[in-house]
């Protein structure tokens, strides 16, 4: 039985088609990434899969339970961690956990044991009697995740789990998710952090303007755009016009500066390495490091969604 089965799902808001006849399935125990630019349809998909919103047409089922007609049974097996850390600021961490468990019909003894275990795991147990409004962003995020796990879900929806978090919270959350995956929990992950999806997911779907444009394992997706290769080089010292000069080397399709490194996109890395070595010699620069890189999942994402790179990241064309 599939954990999630989506068939020909369409959702319109007035004249806007938020989801256009999308279909996919997620196997039990799989970690599935759902990537897309803002407004692509990720949140609409999650809202339908969690039964908050109704599809215009098509069906979605969770472990065989139709989300529209058998909503309560479908939801019972889910944990939902929304993008906003939606904890109750005026309740303590413990009260938040108890409330979440009561909503999911977890018995008293079981919910107390589970809450203790999770609060310890997320390093919040010592603060269990403190109201959440005094918590940092990372602590609230950890509490949100703990609340999402209090019913021991078979399927976990994780919406931007580590977005904008401190290193400690980030590591704790990733460790816990890795443990869940080992325990066989199915994870449906949306993230803007493409590297996170690359590392964590068995498969990813890329959605753009309501359509699924690709769905496969990250490595398989990268193979589809082998023409996008790059070399990454750093010199012993940098100057202001270096990026411009490097972008004019033969074979360079695009150049980017990332910290003390330059990433040069090309279709012929070996030719470009020669050109970079010549450039270094001419400008009396020493090459500190140089490496050839295959296409990243981010490259796949950009190619398939029609986005373009800017100085600091990815920007939508429209």
């Amino acid at each position, binding site marked *: 039985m599939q954990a999630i089965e989506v068939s020909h799902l369409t959702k319109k808001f007035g004249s806007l088609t938020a989801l256009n006849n999308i279909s996919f399935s997620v196997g039990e125990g799989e970690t599935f990434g759902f990537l897309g630019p803002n407004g692509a349809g990720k949140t609409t998909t999650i809202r339908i899969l969690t039964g908050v919103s109704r599809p215009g047409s098509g069906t979605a089922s969770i472990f065989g339970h139709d989300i529209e007609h058998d909503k309560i049974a479908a939801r019972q097996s889910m944990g939902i961690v929304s993008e906003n850390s939606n904890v109750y600021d005026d309740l303590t961490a413990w009260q938040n956990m108890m409330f979440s468990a*009561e909503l999911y019909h977890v018995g008293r003894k079981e919910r107390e044991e589970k809450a203790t275990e999770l609060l310890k795991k997320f390093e919040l147990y010592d603060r269990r009697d403190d109201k959440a409004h005094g918590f940092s962003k990372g602590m609230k995020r950890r509490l949100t995740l703990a609340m999402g796990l209090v019913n021991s879900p078979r399927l976990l929806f994780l919406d931007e789990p580590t977005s904008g978090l401190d290193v400690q919270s980030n590591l704790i959350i990733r460790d816990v998710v890795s443990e869940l995956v080992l325990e066989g929990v199915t994870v449906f992950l949306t993230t803007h952090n493409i590297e996170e999806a690359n590392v964590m997911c068995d498969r990813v779907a890329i959605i753009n303007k309501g359509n699924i444009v690709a769905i496969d394992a990250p490595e398989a997706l990268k193979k589809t755009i082998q023409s996008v290769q790059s070399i990454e080089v750093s010199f012993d010292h940098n100057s202001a016009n270096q990026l411009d000069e490097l972008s004019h080397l033969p074979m360079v399709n695009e150049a980017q500066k990332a910290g003390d490194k330059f990433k040069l996109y090309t279709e012929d890395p070996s030719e470009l390495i020669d050109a970079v070595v010549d450039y270094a010699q001419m400008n009396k620069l020493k090459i500190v490091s140089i490496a050839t890189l295959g296409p990243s999942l981010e490259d796949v994402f950009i190619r398939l969604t029609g986005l373009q790179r800017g100085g600091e990241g990815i920007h939508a064309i429209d």
Partner: protein
Amino acid sequence: MPSIEQRGWAERLSCEISAAWAIAKKDMRIYYLKPNIIVSGIFFPLFMFLAFALGKNTPPGTLIPGLISITLLFSASSIEPVSIPIERRVKTFERLLAAPISLNSLVSGESLSGFLYSLGIACMPLAVGIFIFSTPIVHVPALVISMILTAFCFATLGTLFAAYPTENVGEVISILNTVRLPLIFISGVFIPISAMPQIGQSIALISPLTYGNDMIEYAYTGKSLFSPLLDIAALIIFILIFQITANYLYKKFNE
């Protein structure tokens, strides 16, 4: 833990009731002492009542039934119009919408907190009547039943108005007040229904406060415009109408 489909109907009902109770407890912990709830639930009916009652040439004790009626109206309908828009803004309401509970339990749980708050607050004028003015209560069971039904009716009304899809508390309260304020003038609280013009008497029939106030008057004086059974039936019908409409609106606005 057995899955939901393996549970019998009695256990499922118990799950729904305990989830509704959990929602009510959460609201009690978070909202009962919020300043705008206290103003809206306690001070507003008190000052409104004083504004109309002071200067009337009637013994203060006879005003207690009216004070109880408007206290029930304002306090019962004051929690959800505050809590739900706030929870929409901070996205905790989404947590309730995605929980494995029916919309009926969600709406009932929300109403339950307004109901209990209202009963607690209405004990104040009740106590003032008993201990300060020695106002006699002729039918205690009728008073208990009327207070319970009136409180639940207006708590459900508050939940119904909070279905309006906004994150702004003021917006819901403004819309609600366009209904709540006229109710106190057309329901026999300040002006007896029999003294109203014909059109006023006809409008009074569609106000739930008319039946709540009528039964509370009956409990205190033994006299009423309608029979207590009719008052009970009318209040139950209003509760059902508000509950069904609230279910429909929460479903519709979240699609």
